[in-house]
């Protein structure tokens, strides 16, 4: 009797929640038809952006531990020399200015994400707005996604990450040992109508917008510049574009 009463109360209280999958048209999260992406102006980034600042705002907001050991470090956004981030563009007489420039790299939020294909628990999945998101609750730490990602954008917590945090931001959960994590493209901020933190802290060198909208900042920048994507030949369809000249004049 008591159970039945609680059950009925339960259904009533849950009526405010959206259906789990399918019918709502929002399964997978995000707004259908959007395709969020970044356009990085590499030259401008090297001139005006402060990578330490970007990494620290990102780390503070999302409780990313700072671990020096390269085997255990947790990376959401970091810097990589041009030569390494675009290894396939191994041109003989590449200009030194390009070759020596640092490129900010992060999860590419692929259109065909290999990490999503290999995840055995669907802990990582693609939202309707193109963001490749993680459900940390479901991650079993098998690291298939780390093997599948051609960009090294995923990191496993080999030890308790909380020990490596100076300060815990109570607004975002931390992770535990044995869970893989990566850049979320600030999906929680996007859902609230805010910009991703790295774009906000980049002094205009990282543009953010809807790649499906021809009038967006990112599409206008791409229409007027020569752009490249990391290892696009693999067919992953990265959503992060890099331009070497031109964004600044047109953005």
């Amino acid at each position, binding site marked *: 009797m008591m159970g039945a*009463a*609680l059950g009925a*109360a*339960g259904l*009533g*209280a*849950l*009526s*405010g*929640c*959206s259906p*789990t*999958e399918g019918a*709502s048209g*929002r*399964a*997978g*999260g*995000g707004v259908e038809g959007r395709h969020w992406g970044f356009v990085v102006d590499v030259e401008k980034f090297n001139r005006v952006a402060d990578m330490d600042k970007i990494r620290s705002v990102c780390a503070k907001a999302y409780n990313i531990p700072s671990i020096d050991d390269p085997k255990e470090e947790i990376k959401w956004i970091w810097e990589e020399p041009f030569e390494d981030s675009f290894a396939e563009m191994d041109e003989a007489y590449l200009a030194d200015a390009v070759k020596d420039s640092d490129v900010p790299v992060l999860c590419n939020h692929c259109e065909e994400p290999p990490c999503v294909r290999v995840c055995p628990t669907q802990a990582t*999945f693609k*939202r309707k707005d193109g963001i490749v*998101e993680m*459900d*940390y*609750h479901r991650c079993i730490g098998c690291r298939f996604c780390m093997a599948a990602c051609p960009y090294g954008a995923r990191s496993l917590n080999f030890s308790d990450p*909380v020990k490596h945090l100076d300060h*815990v*931001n*109570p*607004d*975002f*959960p*931390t*992770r*535990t040992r044995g869970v893989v994590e990566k850049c979320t493209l600030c*999906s929680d901020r996007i*859902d*609230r109508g805010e910009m991703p933190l790295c774009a906000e802290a980049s002094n205009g060198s990282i543009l953010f917008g809807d790649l499906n909208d021809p009038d967006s900042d990112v599409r206008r920048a791409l229409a007027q510049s020569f752009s490249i994507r990391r290892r696009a030949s693999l067919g992953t369809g990265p959503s992060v574009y890099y331009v070497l000249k031109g964004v600044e004049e047109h953005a």
Partner: protein
Amino acid sequence: MYKGKRIVAFAVVFCAVVLMPFWANAFGASASSGPEVSTDTPAINQMDEKQCVAETEYMKGSHMQLLDQWRTDVVRNGSREYTSDSGQVYEKSLDGTCLGCHSNKEEFCDACHDYAGVDLYCWDCHDGSAS
């Protein structure tokens, strides 16, 4: 009765031992009065009308189902707002909404979970003590 005294004596001892738990329960110090759960936190004391996202009776019995649904809604479906039966809109957030009010983990969450003998790992990631 053959060895009657002994039989009666041991029968009395036997009954006393068997009935002891019932005796203790009936007359002892509140053995099964349930856990002491406190809602005495600054955030709750500030509220004019003390109201949770759902009825107290429902929250007592089924808060885990609600939280499970919220998790699916937020992480997988991107739905972050919850409208309660009273029409008030809340953010579906364990850290923000739940632990924002119930900041006394020991006296609120732990009190009942310890009593019920359940061992949870929610707080490994959702650090209620920080808020």
